[in-house]
């Protein structure tokens, strides 16, 4: 039988706690029990959810104009694609320049 003794005032565990703190506990910790319609979520699914949440926050960040990762090839496949396209164009230009230069050399 538990008789609660005096507890210090809550520090942000209720309404004031940040979302990350609450999700960290409610999604990640606590007892896992498979319900009979099997809804208690497994770790792998929780990880997916969290990744998606972070993406959701990222979208919000973009709305506010923070988008540096868009141009970082390590973080964005689009940027990686752009990077390749840019490199390709540069190489083509270079090749064209060299090919353009050669006949002149031969002529001289």
């Amino acid at each position, binding site marked *: 039988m538990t008789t*609660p003794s005096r507890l210090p005032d809550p*520090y942000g565990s209720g*309404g004031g706690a940040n979302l*990350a703190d609450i999700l960290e506990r409610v*999604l990640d*910790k606590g*007892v896992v029990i498979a*319900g009979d319609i099997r809804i208690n979520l497994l770790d792998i699914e929780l990880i997916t959810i969290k990744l998606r949440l972070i993406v959701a926050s990222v979208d919000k960040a973009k709305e506010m104009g923070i988008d540096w990762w868009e141009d970082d090839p390590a973080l964005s496949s689009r940027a990686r694609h752009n990077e390749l396209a840019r490199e390709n164009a540069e190489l083509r230009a270079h090749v064209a320049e060299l090919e353009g230069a050669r006949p002149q050399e031969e002529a001289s």
Partner: protein
Amino acid sequence: MTGLRYVYAVCRPFGTPLQAELTGVAGAPPKQLSHHGLVAVVSEVPAEDFAEEPLRAHLEDLEWLTATARAHQSVIDALTVVTTPLPLRLGTVFQDDSSVRVMMEAREEAFRRTLDRLDGRVEWGVKVYAETEQTEPERSPGKAASGRDYLRQRRQRNRSHEEMWENSERFAGRLHHTLAEYAEDSRLHAPQNPALSRASGRNVLNAAYLVPRSDSEEFVEKVDRTKDELSGVRVELTGPWAAYSFSGIDGEADA
């Protein structure tokens, strides 16, 4: 009844009724379901939101998930005031009362052992952040008397920055050592992603401590005392939480 049963926690019987105004994840009041000397705290949830498929879809929705997680936590919070709950994970749903009873019966022994271990204890969360902003305003480069002077100033700034990192990590290590010695048990969690926590600074410690209720006041004072120890470092305390981080049962990973 057509609804499903959402289970928040398993507890020992507690005399006090739950607050009348308390509402659970779908707005329904939680009730106690007794079985073999244990109590499951459950509420009815609509199948159109909580059956497997709709729930999975809802979990991708940050606003829905936030509201649901907060509601789940508020029930656990209310329980923590009157007893020591064994919190279940978000999304533990059963068809009806009798299938909740079947589950309780199957896990009775493990529940009792874990409840004994956690009885009268709460979890406190302690986080340490190293502030990334410069503690003193940067001097404008124009003030440097020469190029060499500018580089010297830059080097100094970098060095003090590095020292700040090292100091804050040392501080976090010391703090964890002290608190872990005082607490009955502790867990180190992964640093929080700033995209989700919206906290400033770099999270260098994210730990949970299992502390008897009776020692909680002293624990809080211990944490409070460290708050001004080092500039450029922020200490955050959250709790008391139900012992989420220590509620693993049957050798199942509980960290």
